């Protein structure tokens, strides 16, 4: 008599989803990698050193996984959090004190810190193994952009709780933009940019204003950072991640000695 698991695996529904038997023999272990959408990111076979933990430290993978965790917890938090000056802090307090799944905020924040650290460690490993060398030069460049975007993701998210820690960290962090050469109103060379004898670069038109959407960190900033944090930067990161992974494959897989 056929067992229940056999009946399920012989059913039309199961077979329509998984187009091959269990991956327990060599043939089906290859087929599963080629036919499964989530697995097709991987090659079918790989050099043994390319997956040795002591060689790769798994840091790129961990960073990607943390990005997924941040996306999932972040979307869940968006269902609850309202990015306005009146409500933002209260919503975060409620997440901490009242909400049943308030721990999502803790996971989101610690995951963000962890992601900054793992992305550094990933870069560190890639440098130490010389993996940026030809033919992988351009993928390193994409990686540097992703590193920068990870920091910006964390930076824009830092403001959203709207507590003292948040606005002053963003104030200090963005004050430097005031001094951007030519584009900040306290930057060298800004005084040279004049139109009909009047300064073009002022407190309400310089780089810092562009970042904050206001002269001080206020509700316009909260809205701007919210959109950057939840929509704009994640979309760019997702696109660059796709290219980054695709190029790992196209540039010959994870580096190993020739």
């Amino acid at each position: 008599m056929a067992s229940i698991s056999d009946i399920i695996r012989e059913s039309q529904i199961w077979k329509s989803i998984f187009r091959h038997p269990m991956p327990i023999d060599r043939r089906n272990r290859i087929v599963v990698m080629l036919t499964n959408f989530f697995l097709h990111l991987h090659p079918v076979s790989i050099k043994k050193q390319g997956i040795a933990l002591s060689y790769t430290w798994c840091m790129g993978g961990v960073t990607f996984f943390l990005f997924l965790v941040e996306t999932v917890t972040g979307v869940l938090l968006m269902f609850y959090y309202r990015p306005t000056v009146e409500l933002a802090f209260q919503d975060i307090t409620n997440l901490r004190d009242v909400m049943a799944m308030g721990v999502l905020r803790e996971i989101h924040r610690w995951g963000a810190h962890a992601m900054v650290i793992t992305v550094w460690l990933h870069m560190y490993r890639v440098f130490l193994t010389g993996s940026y060398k030809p033919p992988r030069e351009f993928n390193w460049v994409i990686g540097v952009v992703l590193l920068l975007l990870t920091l910006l993701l964390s930076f824009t998210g830092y403001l959203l709780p709207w507590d003292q820690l948040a606005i002053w960290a963003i104030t200090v962090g963005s004050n430097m933009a005031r001094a951007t050469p030519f584009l900040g109103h306290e930057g060298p060379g800004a005084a040279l940019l004049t139109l009909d004898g009047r300064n073009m670069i002022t407190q309400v038109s310089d780089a810092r204003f562009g970042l904050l959407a206001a002269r001080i960190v206020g509700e316009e900033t909260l809205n701007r950072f919210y959109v950057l944090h939840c929509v704009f930067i994640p979309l760019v990161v997702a696109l660059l991640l796709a290219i980054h992974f695709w190029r790992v494959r196209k540039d010959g897989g994870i580096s190993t000695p020739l």
Partner: protein
Amino acid sequence: MHGHVDHATFLQQISSFLGFYYIALAAMNGIAALAIWRGGRSKTLFRVGPLTFTNALLWTVVAFFFLLMAPLAMSGSEPLMRWVSMPDAFKHAADAVMGPVAYSLGSFLILAVLFSFRKFFVKTWVAWLGLNLSFLFMGLSITDPDFAAIVTKPDNVPIVGLIFLLGFFTWLATAKAVKNDERIARGEKPLEAVDNEKILVWPDLVYTELICMVALTALLLLWGIALQAPLEEPASSVKTPNPSKAPWYFLGLQEMLVYYDPWMAGVVLPSVVIVGLMAIPYIDFNRRGNGYYTINERKFAYVIFQFGFLVLWVTLIVMGTFLRGPNWNFFGFYETWDVHKVVPMNNVDLSEYFWIRGLGREMPRAPEGSGAGLELLYILWREAPGIILLIGYFTVIPPAMVVYSKFFRNMYLKMGLIRFMVMSHLLLLMGLLPIKMVCRWSFDLKYFIAIKEYFLNF
């Protein structure tokens, strides 16, 4: 953070954590000893009379030592916990010695020593001893309320983690590189080239990934439950906290503000870091060392990168996070953050050194009522020493490197003009920070070029 509780209550608060901390350390060493002994990797380290000390025995002794500390730490009573606290004499001495100079130079020297004697420091037992000592240092120090306040501040916890993770991975990479360098010197292939046949991704990689994901999820859940994310008072644009700090990963840049104005520390140098990182693959012409750990085959690239990452980036972040208090003053590990601490600052511009102290003249100044053009000429004349120095720095040094150093001459011949110029200028830009630091420490230099009229202070 613990400022509002008295010392006895503070000790009570940390005692249970500290007790389990030492039990964990004891277990860690016990397991290590057991693994060495059962794995047959027991080696004789030294003999005392009839007793033979193997490494397994050594770690057992260390485990017992930590086991003795655990009940003392868990007692929560002041006289008993004194035995597991850093002695006051050491704390006072450490705070007295510590300052921006001692900290920055000290970290640099420690890293330089670790690098120079890497063959010794990568030995497993030396590294394990170092790990034990750093854990012991953390444990002994955390009974100090000021140390505890900066280390256990929720947003600082990741940096403590970062320090240990970086320590571990730097050790791992260096150990592999040392082994590979020895093999390469013997004419063998690096370890990564041995036993490197192709294997199937299912099951070997996908299972590793699955286990990794499960472990990470568990870790994040535990972390989230055990440690609450920071949330301070509601935002107020009129109450400025002191110190006001950027998020921790930017504190290296904020620390640079001590030495450079915001346009350099906050805009130009970070951009140079990003551009410089992107340029690495295009200026590193060395084709060796791709796909395995090695130091000797790419020493120049390795040393420069480690200097930039570990010394200029990470140690500055650690200083900005842990050692910079109110008014961005420096405070030692065990020092209370006193808002009223006064640090004298008499920094002098290079132009003042040159005109007033050097030539004994007044600073050049445009006559009253002269036009903007004439005023600018006078400003340039006043700042001429710094401007000439800076132009010389970027134009004289690169060709001088090629002419006077055989090492850089070879590099130039292999790289060509453009790549060599990009490389040398990135190197010189990176050098601006340590140079300015040393100038500040040794003769209170404020600016090389001080054109306050146009916000151009350098």
